[in-house]
C-alpha cells in the first residue's frame, strides 16, 4: 500500500527519461541529455558519501579522473576496447578510497573537505607530468570505432541509453541502501557522530564503506565520460571544477536525498546550456554571472536544496514517504 504512491513519481520520471530521445531526437538535445545523465550519475555517486554520510568531499574528481583515464589508457597501451578499462578504474578508485579514507576520516568538517581537495589537486598535477598517461596533453580514444565494443558511436543515442541504465542502477542501489541498515547508519553519522557511536554504529568502517561505494560509481561516471568524449586530460579528469560541480548539483537538488542530485542536474545542466547558448557567443562572461547568481540565490533562499522546497509544498506526501 505504501509502495504504490511512493513509486508513481519514479515511474513518471523513468518514462520521461526513457522517451526523451524520442521527442528530442536532434543530436544536440541528445548530447544535452547525455550531459545531464552524466552529471546526475556523478552527483548521485557523490551523494552516497557527501549527502547521506554528510562527509563533504570536494575532491571527488580524483575518482572521476581515475575512472576516466583507465579506459583510454587501456586503449593506448594495449589497443583494448576502452570498456576493458572500466574495472581497472574501479579497482584503482576503491584502492584510493581506502587509502585516503582511513587517515582522512579522522578529520571532521572542513578538514575533511580540505584534505580531499588537496589529494585531488596532487593527483591532477602529478598526472600532468606523467608521460605514460600523456602528461598535459592527455589521452585519446579510438578516432573511429573498430566495432561496437569500442563504444565509439556516431550517434548520441546509444550513449543516452547506456548512461540512463547506469543511472537507474545507481539510483536503485541508493534506494535499497536507504532502506538498509547501512543507509540508516549513514544518516545517523551525518547528524550525530557521537550519538551514533554510542549506539554501536561502527562509524569509521561505515564511512569508509560509503566512500568506497561512492568512489566506485564516481569512477564509472568518469569512464563513461572519457569513453563518450574520446578524450581526457588532467584538467577535465581531475580539475577542481569537476569536484565542485558534483557538490553543487547535489546541494542544489538536495543532498542526502535519493532524487536530489537528479533534480539538481535537471536544473543546472539546462541552466548551463541555456546561459551558454544565449550569452556564450557574446563572450562577456554573462554565462557565469547568471550561473553564479542563481547558485547564490538558491544558497541564500533555499539552503536545503530544491528538494526541500518540494517538501514544503507537499508536506503530507513527503511525510508518508519518508517517515515510514
Amino acid at each position: 500500500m505504501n509502495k504504490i504512491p511512493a513509486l508513481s513519481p519514479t515511474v513518471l520520471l523513468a518514462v520521461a527519461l526513457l522517451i526523451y530521445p524520442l521527442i528530442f531526437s536532434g543530436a544536440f538535445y541528445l548530447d544535452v541529455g547525455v550531459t545531464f545523465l552524466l552529471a546526475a550519475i556523478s552527483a548521485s555517486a557523490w551523494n552516497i558519501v557527501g549527502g547521506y554520510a554528510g562527509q563533504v568531499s570536494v575532491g571527488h574528481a580524483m575518482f572521476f579522473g581515475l575512472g576516466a583515464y583507465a579506459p583510454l589508457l587501456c586503449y593506448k597501451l594495449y589497443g583494448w576496447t576502452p570498456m576493458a578499462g572500466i574495472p581497472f578504474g574501479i579497482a584503482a578508485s576503491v584502492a584510493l578510497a581506502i587509502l585516503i579514507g582511513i587517515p582522512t576520516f579522522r578529520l571532521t568538517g572542513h578538514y575533511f573537505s580540505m584534505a580531499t581537495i588537496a589529494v585531488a589537486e596532487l593527483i591532477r598535477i602529478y598526472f600532468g607530468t606523467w608521460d605514460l598517461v600523456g602528461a598535459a596533453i592527455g589521452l585519446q580514444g579510438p578516432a573511429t570505432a573498430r566495432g561496437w565494443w569500442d563504444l565509439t558511436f556516431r550517434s548520441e543515442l546509444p550513449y543516452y541509453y547506456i548512461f540512463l541504465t547506469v543511472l537507474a542502477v545507481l539510483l536503485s542501489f541508493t534506494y535499497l541502501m536507504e532502506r538498509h541498515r547501512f543507509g540508516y547508519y549513514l544518516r545517523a553519522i551525518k547528524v550525530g557522530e557521537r550519538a551514533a557511536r554510542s549506539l554501536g554504529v561502527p562509524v569509521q568502517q561505515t564511512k569508509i564503506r560509503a566512500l568506497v561505494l561512492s568512489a566506485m560509481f564516481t569512477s564509472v561516471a568518469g569512464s563513461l565520460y572519457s569513453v563518450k568524449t574520446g578524450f581526457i586530460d588532467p584538467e577535465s579528469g581531475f580539475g577542481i571544477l569537476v569536484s565542485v560541480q558534483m557538490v553543487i548539483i547535489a546541494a542544489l537538488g538536495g543532498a542526502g536525498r535519493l532524487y536530489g542530485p537528479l533534480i539538481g542536474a535537471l536544473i543546472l545542466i539546462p541552466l548551463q546550456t541555456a546561459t551558454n547558448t544565449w550569452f556564450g557567443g557574446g563572450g562577456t562572461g554573462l554565462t557565469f554571472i547568471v550561473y553564479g547568481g542563481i547558485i547564490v540565490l538558491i544558497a541564500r533562499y533555499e539552503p536545503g536544496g530544491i528538494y526541500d522546497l518540494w517538501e514544503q509544498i507537499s508536506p503530507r506526501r513527503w511525510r508518508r514517504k519518508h517517515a515510514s
Partner: protein
Amino acid sequence: MKGFRVLKAVAAAATAFTFYAAAQTNAAESVKIGIIWPLTGNAAAAGQASKAAAEVAADIVNNAHPELGDLPLAKTAGLPNMGGAKLELIFVDHQGNPSLAQQLATRLITQDKVHVLMGAYQSSCSFTATAVAERYGIPFMVGESAAGNITGRGFKWVFRGTPIASDYARTYMRFFADMKKQGKKIDSIAIVNENTDYGTSVADAIVEEAKKANVPVALRIPYSASSTDVSAQILQLKEKNPDVVIFISYTADSILYMKSMNNLQYKPPMVIGDDTGFSDPSFIPAVADAAQGAMNRSAWAIGKPGSTTYKINEMYKAKTGRDLDDTSARNMQSFFALADAINRAGSTDPEKIREALTKTDLKPEQLMMGYQGVKFDETGQNILAATYLIQLHDKSYELVWPDNAATAKLQWPMTGGKN
C-alpha cells in the same frame, strides 16, 4: 505529482531550446561558419582577441575592400563565385572544456546547420570538436592549436592553416645554424615551458629537433603558468648559463619571467619567446624596460604604413584598441584560407568545400602572414606555413629573421634591461 512536475520542467526547458533554435535558423543565402573558441575561462583573452580578428576578417570578405591588394576576396563584397553571398559567423564559447567543445560542435552542425567549422584554440578542445566534424562530414579549420596529432589521425575533414610545434622547432634550429655560421656562440640552449598541452607540445618538439640538429639542451624547466614566483627557476638558469633560453609561456608568466630576470640580474646572450605570451599586447608595455632585444616567434608583422598588413591592423585596432597579435592573426589567416576555399567551391555543400580546401594553393603575396603559402597535405596540415623571428627594439617588435624578410638588424646579444 512530483514526477509530472519533473516532466513538465524537462519539457519547458526543451521548449525553450527549440524556440531559440528556431530563432537561430534563418533562410538567408549566407554561408554559415561556426566558430568555437574559449571566450571565458583561462584562455579567454586569446579567444576574445581571435573573435575580434575573425570579425574583421568577415568584414573584409563581406564588404568591398579594394585597398587591401592581393588578399583574396577583399576587393569584392561577399563571395563572387556565389553571387556575393556573405559569410555569417556564429560564435560559441567552449570555456576550455573539451566535452563542451564536443557538444557545441554538435549544436553548430545539427541545430545551427553551419556549413563549416573553425576553432578551437586549446588542443584538448580541438581534439574533441574535430572528431564531431569528422563524424558529420563538415570541414573543420583548426586555426591555432599546436599539438601535432590533431591532424594525422586519418581524418578527412580536418585542416590546419597554422604551423605546428615541429615547424616552430625546425625554425629555431635553422635560425641557430644561421647564427653559428655568423660566428655566434650557441653551445647550449635551455627550454622553459609552461606545462599544459601547448608548452609541452612545443618543448617536446624542440627537444627532438635539437637532438637532430646537435644542439645540446642544457636544461628544460616545465612550470605551471599560474606561478607567482619564478626566481628559483631563474637561478637555475643562471647556474647552467645557456647561450639561448627559449620561453614557451603564457602572458602573466612571460612578463613575470622577464621582470624577475631583470631584477635578479640574469641576462643570457639571447632570449627567444615562443609567441603566445610574448605576443600578448600587454607584454611589451610591461617589459619594455626589462627585456630589450628579446626575440619572439611570429608569422605576423604589422609592416610599413600603407601595406596590406598595416591596414588590416588598423581595422583591428579600430575595433579593439589593441594591435593584432600573432595568435589572432594566424586564426585570421586560417579564416581567409577557409573563405577562399568556400568561394572556389561555389557552394555550401560540405563535400565540395572539402575538395576545394584540398586544392587550396595560396601564394605568399595573397597572404597576410609570413607563410610561404597555404597548401594542405593529405592529413590536412598546411605544409607551407612558416614563421618569422622578431625582436623587441624599443617599444615594438621588428622583423629580424630570415634575412630576406628582415626590416631591422638583429641585435645579438640582447641588451636586456636597466639593471
